[in-house]
């Protein structure tokens, strides 16, 4: 993967995170049921963390060499 492709991948990840954050806010403001809000926020939080850990922190590449960045 070249630099432009990697940068594009990062941009996609941040767009997903922005959308999920907006959804979080709408859920918190728009839904009255506490149980539903807490459940949905927990699920979205885990999804956002998974995106950051995989796309930004490269968890699946922990055992690769430094030259294998892409």
């Amino acid at each position, binding site marked *: 993967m070249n630099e432009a492709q990697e*940068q594009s991948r990062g941009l996609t*990840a941040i767009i997903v995170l922005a959308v999920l*954050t907006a959804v*979080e806010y709408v859920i*918190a403001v728009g839904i009255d049921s506490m149980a539903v809000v807490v459940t949905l926020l927990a699920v979205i*939080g885990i999804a956002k*963390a998974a995106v*950051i850990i995989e796309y930004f922190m490269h968890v699946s590449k922990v055992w690769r060499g430094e*030259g294998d*960045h892409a």
Partner: protein
Amino acid sequence: MSAAAPTAAAHGENRLRISRLGLWLFFLSETCLFGTFAAARFYMNGTHTPDELNQLLGLVLTSILLVSSLTAYRAETAIAHGNNEHGRLMLLATMVLGVIFLSGVIVEWSIAEFVPSEGYGTSFFSMTGLHASHVATGVFFLGLAYLFASRGKYSPGSHWGVTGVVMYWHFVDVVWVFFYPALYLVS
């Protein structure tokens, strides 16, 4: 001599893997720390959140931290591809966003209409304070990475210093991903 070179390279690779594993273990221990604070928030206050909490400021702070994750990612990617100039620019942008985030936290503390000695205030100030101290640490180490990058210490084959700092920055972002709804949105 020819046999020593591959051995040295293998040693370097092994050291890198151990460094990465060490960093992930550090994240694991930090997760326990932050998790304890989040659990204490719900144990002490349930899902109560004061109405006077500034929701807009919370959303803005979250957005700033998310954008800083992108600039940090771009810095690491650029340096990993030998584009040091762009990498340094993105490191600088990440530091600026970190400082803006910290300034926002200070503003929030100054306008908060609850005190640290009451239930929610205890959780709010301790959680945001603990997180802000990690952001400040991240800004410091990003500064060091910027300094080393300026001196040409990193190359596509050797940039663990940047990668480690950027991973730490992303971890701080992950923490906020859970702290933000726990402090602001659950009510």
